[in-house]
């Protein structure tokens, strides 16, 4: 976490020269103060959504997957779409905290902790769907290779099993990365707290005392975890893309899926992070830590990844023609002009066309328009997964098997519930733990590092 204070561009990291004590107070304010009215309103709304989802979940468990819109032809519906959507959102968090760390992009500091927390909650939300879509989720333990009376093992050739390992690893490592990053901050909270809170923080901080002998190992571990998280992020969404790409289904089987999904995940993730941060900085008056410059940078990343997604769309389309494979060609014609054309064009405009507005600096620095565009990005990316899953399945090789997919109320309620769960977790996190990494932020303020060097 050592940043060179001279490695800088025009972006001042903590614009107003706050003393460390002021930084402490600002960051710990949401945690130490009683919840505000805004917070209560927000969590009421998200809890409501969560409960609607919980009811839908109970409905699913009791009556089975028949309550969903899936049918023989479209065997994967909202369940998988939501899974891929939420995993994608998790990736932005890891990208911000790990990948930008590796690239020494110091502007990540104000948003990294929050992004990591979002990753963890998004991964939990995502992980719910593969478990419940099995129909008998109480048998989910069968996914893990353990010695059993039937002497069977899991199918290691299946990408669905690779998903199990990938998502579990992703969750575990993200959680570890996040927890390790939290230790110094919890220690700081311990030193400010009293009573029961102090006891809890004492235990959770493991007795961290900011010793430099510890910082040495800690920094290296943090760097390594960031270095491990980066390929992990790429691998997780790659393995998710394998769920589709290893099949022979036209529209699914195309070699560009792995990098395309990863770019799309980062794209959608940044859309969600931007959405949440725009709201958060307003609600908690953190506009001088999460600055317009940060948001502008995120818009540039949105533009870049959105263009990558657009590139992938064009490649798929061109190769469908080039291959001469009539089934593949049909898939793309059906997507653009068939019964789900409205979904396709929503996806295309939200992901490729509207983000092009981010070429213009005025738009990148205009919060209301930015808010609209990032919400559209979220919508567009959800529809992208919908288009990929449903349009490829609903009309494949045999016309007699063609069918339409219509989501049921349970499907929609579960989607709503997933947002409710995610935002409830986020709101709880903001109240309980510091959402900005205190130690990292202090380390990158001006004059935080010594001016003369004794090394190299």
């Amino acid at each position, binding site marked *: 976490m*050592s940043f*060179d204070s*001279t*490695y*800088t*561009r025009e972006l001042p990291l903590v614009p107003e020269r706050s003393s460390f004590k002021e930084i402490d107070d600002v960051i710990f304010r949401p945690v130490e103060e009683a919840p505000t009215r805004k917070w209560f309103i927000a969590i009421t709304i998200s809890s409501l959504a969560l409960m609607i989802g919980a009811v839908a979940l109970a409905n699913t468990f009791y009556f089975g997957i028949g309550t969903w819109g899936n049918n023989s032809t479209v065997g994967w519906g909202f369940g998988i779409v939501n899974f891929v959507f939420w995993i994608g959102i998790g990736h932005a968090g890891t990208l911000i905290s790990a990948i930008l760390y590796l*690239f*020494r992009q110091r502007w990540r500091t104000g948003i990294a902790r929050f992004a990591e927390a979002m990753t963890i909650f998004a991964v939990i939300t995502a992980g719910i769907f593969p478990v419940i879509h099995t129909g008998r989720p109480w048998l989910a333990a069968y996914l893990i290779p353990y010695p059993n009376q039937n002497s069977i093992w899991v199918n290691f050739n299946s990408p669905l099993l690779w998903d199990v390992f990938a998502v579990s690893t992703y969750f575990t490592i993200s959680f570890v990365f996040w927890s390790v990053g939290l230790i110094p901050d919890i220690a700081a909270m311990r030193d400010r707290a009293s009573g029961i809170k102090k006891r809890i923080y004492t235990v959770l901080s493991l007795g961290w005392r900011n010793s430099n002998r510890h910082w040495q190992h800690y920094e290296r571990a943090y760097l390594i975890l960031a270095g491990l998280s980066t*390929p992990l992020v*790429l691998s997780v969404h*790659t393995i998710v893309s*394998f769920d589709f*790409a*290893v*099949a*022979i289904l036209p529209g699914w*089987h*195309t*070699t*560009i*899926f*792995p*990098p395309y999904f990863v770019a799309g995940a980062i794209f959608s993730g940044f859309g969600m992070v931007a959405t949440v941060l725009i709201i958060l900085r307003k609600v908690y008056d953190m506009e001088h830590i999460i600055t317009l410059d940060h948001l502008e940078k995120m818009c*540039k990343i949105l533009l*870049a990844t959105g*263009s990558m997604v657009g*590139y*992938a769309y*064009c*490649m*798929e389309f061109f*190769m469908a023609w*080039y*291959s*001469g*494979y009539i089934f593949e060609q049909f898939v793309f014609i059906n997507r653009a002009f068939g019964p789900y054309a409205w979904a396709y064009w929503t996806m295309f405009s939200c992901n490729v066309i509207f983000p092009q507005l981010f*070429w213009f600096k005025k738009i990148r620095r205009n919060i209301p328009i930015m808010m609209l565009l990032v919400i559209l990005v979220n919508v567009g990316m959800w529809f992208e997964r919908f288009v990929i899953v449903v349009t490829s399945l609903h009309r494949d090789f045999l016309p007699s098997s063609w069918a339409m997919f219509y989501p049921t109320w349970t499907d929609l309620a579960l989607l709503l519930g997933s947002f409710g769960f995610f935002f409830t977790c986020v709101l709880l996190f903001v109240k309980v733990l510091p959402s900005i990494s205190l130690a990292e932020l202090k380390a990158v303020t001006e004059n935080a590092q010594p001016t003369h*060097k004794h090394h*190299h």
Partner: protein
Amino acid sequence: MEFHNKALPGKVSRIGFGLLITGLILMVAAFALDYRRAMFDYLTMFMWLLSLGLGSLGLIALEYISGATWSTPFRRVSEFLASLLPVMFLLVIPVVVGMKELFVWTDPQVVKSDAVLQGKEPYLNTTFFIARAAICLLIWVVFYFFLVRNSQKQDSESIPQYTKSNIRLSAIFTPIFMVTLTIIAIDFMMSLFPHWYSTIYGVYYFSGTLVAAYSALTLISVLLKEGNYLSSRINNDHFYSMGMLMFAFNIFWAYIAFSQLLLQWYADIPEETFWYIIIWEHSWKVVSIALFLVHFAIPFLVLMPRSVKTNLKKLKFMAIWMLVAHYLDLYWLIMPAYDHHSAVFGWQEIGFPLFAVGVVIVIFKMKARKTNIIPVGDPKLESGFNFHL
């Protein structure tokens, strides 16, 4: 500025021209002996040089749009390498001339009896092919011209306008770069097997290009540092970062290569797998295994420890290694079209890489004579020098 603005030694010219002439002689002999084989060798060499030239231009654009400053002291090296691009206009001529040897779809008889090729005919025809190649080259040269001109003008007038202008140019260039690179990769390499297709092919060539461009940058930077052409303020942290990026982009290459392999292996569709069957049989199997070891396994293990990335000698060695590995990669992509069964390697193949290296050295020397090796006027240069991890 405490770097030495001295001219490169005459030895460089001698080595450069020596390699170039030797390579040229061997090339001509190869063409005389076996025209078709030499044509494929030439294509391999061409794509390798293109990787260096276009990749370097891409690195320049990347530096501008990401706002990185650590690589600013070396940007001129990439600019010199990018000056291969105008030369590509000349170098592409033999490929165009030899199209009939290289691409089966140029033969009307073959197309007439093949419904699949007929379907592709609107794209895979000689006129459109040449037009695409010309347009892509033109676009690259135009961007090269403007980007490099701004950078060089900044040497004399150190105003931020040039940087701003280059940032804008780079932002526009990046998507165009991806699209044109994909087109050329598909046209020049994928269409060697016109029945085969892979949507990730452009990304695959892109990843190899990045590795090659970074390796070339690293190699030349280390050489310059050793010869005291760069500032003494360029320290191990710079080279560590370069080594780290070489390492990371190599892993990216492996990831792309593996994705393509796994998906086509897994679905097991004959229309796709025949390509992998070709490279997994007879002597091509040896080349494939060698590619895995040379391009991934060994560099991965060697470049992982921090100590290697800060040791200039080892870094230089690995940079050369990666450039060779990229040539091997292109050989593996292109030569199976020449002979499905055996991987040919003889004196004919040697001349081409020699020529290519010679061209690079000669071009570099020519540019270095007239232009500063460090972008002295760049406002980011100071912070670039002061870069510390």
